[in-house]
């Protein structure tokens, strides 16, 4: 049963990722894209967590943890330069 | 005091990182986090005046409670909004002045506003807080809710 649920959950997250990808590509503003990028990182964290039930999978949680702490830095830096108009939208 | 708190929290976090709750792990964690705090002390302008722990914990609990409630209730509400066939939103920029004095508590307020569905902090500049409200539901005063649920306990925390 667990595996069925995992599969469905993963499918939902992947579906979410695909929708997010749509937003990333579509924009229209660079901020939308950044937002979508960040959301995709969250989706990856979600995927890793869904798979984290078994012992070996625990080994991947550190990755999720690191991503949770660091993925926003890229957004922050990009947002800075977008705000200052140094990167074309 | 702050240092002790940092060490304590850090030790616990460390235990979490390592998934083994023995004294040695905790001590290492405490040392490491103290060192980390020291190394990044430049970023710590001021510091958290958290002197009285029990009261602080109680206030934090209060905040956490409202936070959880908001999270569940407002999320459900927002879920409905997003999934409704005819999606109509009335966003609103709301400016208000916080009575919180310390930068740290102000920022915690800002974070809490963002984390609860329906509102996102746009700017905090001194006392001025600007938030973006996703859907201005008539009859619901976001600012009032924020004031009562988060600002008030934070102010009490400040006062400690």
């Amino acid at each position, binding site marked *: 049963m*667990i595996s069925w649920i995992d599969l469905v*959950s993963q499918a939902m997250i992947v579906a979410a990722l695909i929708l997010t990808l749509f937003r990333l590509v579509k924009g229209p503003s660079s901020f939308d894209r950044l937002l979508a990028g960040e959301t995709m990182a*969250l989706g990856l964290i979600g995927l890793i967590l869904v798979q984290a039930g078994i012992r070996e999978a625990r080994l991947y949680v*550190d990755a999720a943890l690191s991503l949770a702490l660091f993925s926003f830095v890229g957004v922050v830096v990009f947002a800075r330069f977008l*705000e200052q108009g140094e990167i074309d939208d | 005091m702050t240092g002790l708190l940092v060490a304590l929290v850090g030790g*616990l976090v460390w235990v*979490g990182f390592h998934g083994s709750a023995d004294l040695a792990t905790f001590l290492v964690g405490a040392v490491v986090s103290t060192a980390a705090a020291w190394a990044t002390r430049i970023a710590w302008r001021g510091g958290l005046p958290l002197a009285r722990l029990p009261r602080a914990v109680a206030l934090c609990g209060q905040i956490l409670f409202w936070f959880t409630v908001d*999270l569940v209730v407002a999320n459900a509400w927002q879920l409905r909004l997003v999934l409704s066939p005819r999606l109509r939103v009335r966003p609103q920029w709301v400016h208000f002045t916080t009575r919180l004095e310390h930068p740290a508590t102000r920022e915690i307020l800002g974070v809490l506003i963002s984390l609860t569905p329906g509102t996102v902090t746009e700017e905090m500049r001194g006392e001025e807080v600007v938030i*973006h409200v996703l859907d201005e539901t008539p009859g619901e005063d976001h600012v009032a809710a924020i004031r009562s649920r988060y600002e008030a306990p934070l102010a009490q925390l400040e006062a400690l």
Partner: protein
Amino acid sequence: MTSLPSWLEAVAAGATLLGAFFFLASAIGLVRLPDFYSRVHAPTKAATLGVALLVIASSIRSLPSGNLVWIEDLLIVAFLFLTVPVSSQVLLRAAATRKVPQVSSTTGEPANAHDGASAGSEDGRTDELAAPDRAG
């Protein structure tokens, strides 16, 4: 290592499904909401409730191992609580500064509506790097 009681299993399963569902919902929000400022709200939700639920599930599942790995899972949530508001705030402010269009139904004005000139390249200041490098 003992196995999990079935009710806990069920709770974990439910949390997993619900968490994933919140992800999906926030993604739908991301797609459907009309302007950038509204869309910022979406991932904030996924980060909060979605991840929190997944973490609850994963923590429950890790219980039989007997050690405290679930703290690590909780840390994920804690970290996201720290970082996601920051990034949404930064994005929001930057977008407002750059005057990203918003739905006409919006009321009020963002913080930077009047001081947009304080940032951005319109102020005519040239960047150090763009100027000829005369050093040496």
